[in-house]
C-alpha cells in the first residue's frame, strides 16, 4: 500500500458515495427536473472522480490518458443530454414541474401556469 494507491482509493470511494446519493435522489425526488439535478451529481462529480482515481491507480501513461479522455467525454456529453431532455419535456408538456415557487419560463412561452 503506497500513498498513490491510498489516494486512488480515496477518489474511488468518494465517487461511490456520490453515486449512492444519486440513486437515493432518483427514487425520492418528486418530478423530472429535480431528478435530473440528482443525476447531474453522478455525471459531473462521480464519473470524473472515478476516472481520476482509476487513472492514478493504473499509473501508466497511455492507459491513464485514455481513462482521462473518457472522463472528458462524460463532461462534454452530460450537459447536452440533460439540457435536451429537460427542454423537450417542458416545451412539449410531457412532464410539467409539480413543485415550484417561481416559473418565469411559462411567461416566456406565453402559457398559463397550471
Amino acid at each position, binding site marked *: 500500500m503506497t500513498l498513490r494507491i491510498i489516494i486512488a482509493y480515496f477518489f474511488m470511494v468518494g465517487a461511490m458515495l456520490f453515486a449512492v446519493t444519486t440513486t437515493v435522489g432518483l427514487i425520492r425526488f418528486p418530478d423530472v427536473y429535480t431528478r435530473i439535478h440528482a443525476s447531474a451529481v453522478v455525471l459531473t462529480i462521480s464519473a470524473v472522480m472515478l476516472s481520476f482515481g482509476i487513472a492514478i491507480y493504473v499509473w501508466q501513461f497511455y492507459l491513464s490518458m485514455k481513462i482521462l479522455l473518457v472522463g472528458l467525454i462524460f463532461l462534454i456529453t452530460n450537459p447536452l443530454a440533460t439540457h435536451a431532455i429537460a427542454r423537450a419535456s*417542458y416545451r412539449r408538456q410531457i412532464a410539467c414541474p409539480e413543485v415550484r415557487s417561481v416559473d*418565469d419560463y411559462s411567461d*416566456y412561452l406565453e402559457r398559463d401556469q397550471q
Partner: protein
Amino acid sequence: MKRKAFAFFIILAVWIIFAGDVENDVLIVGVIASLVTSWLYSDLLFRSSNRKRKWSYYFRKIVYILLFIPVFFYEAFISALKVSKHAFEKKPTFSPGIVKVKTTLKNITALTILANLITLTPGTLTLDFDMKEKAFFIHWIDVTTAEEAETRKQVIERFEKWLEVIFQ
C-alpha cells in the same frame, strides 16, 4: 491551412493515446485517418479569425483556463453536497423553480460554455436562452429569493466573471 494542420495534430494525438503505443503500422493508419478527418471536418473544430493578437494574449488565456478548472470542480463539489443533503432529508425542503437570469456576455462561444457549465453544476439546469433579452432560463433547486440581482449572484456570477476575462 493553419487550422487544418492544427486539427490534424490534435486528432493524431488522440489517436496515439487511444492506440496505446507508437509503432509504424499504427502511425500509418492514424496519419491517413486523421488526414481525411481534418481535411473534411476542421471547420467544426476551429473558426477562422482575422484578428492579430500578441502571443501574450493567448498565453494569458491558457493560464486562466487552467486556473478555472479547479475552481469549477470546487464549485461543482460544493453544490453536489447541497443536492446530496436534500436527498437524505426526512422531508425534502427544497423549493424548485425556473428563474430568468440576464447575462452580460457578448461572445457566442462564451454563452454556450456558460450554459453548459450551469447545466454541469448539480442544482442548476439551463432550459432555454432568450436572444432578445440575453437571458437564461434556469431551473434551480433552491430558489431562495425572487430578486433578480440576488439570483444572478448565486447562480451565474461565479462562472461569468471568469468567462468574461477569458473571452474578452
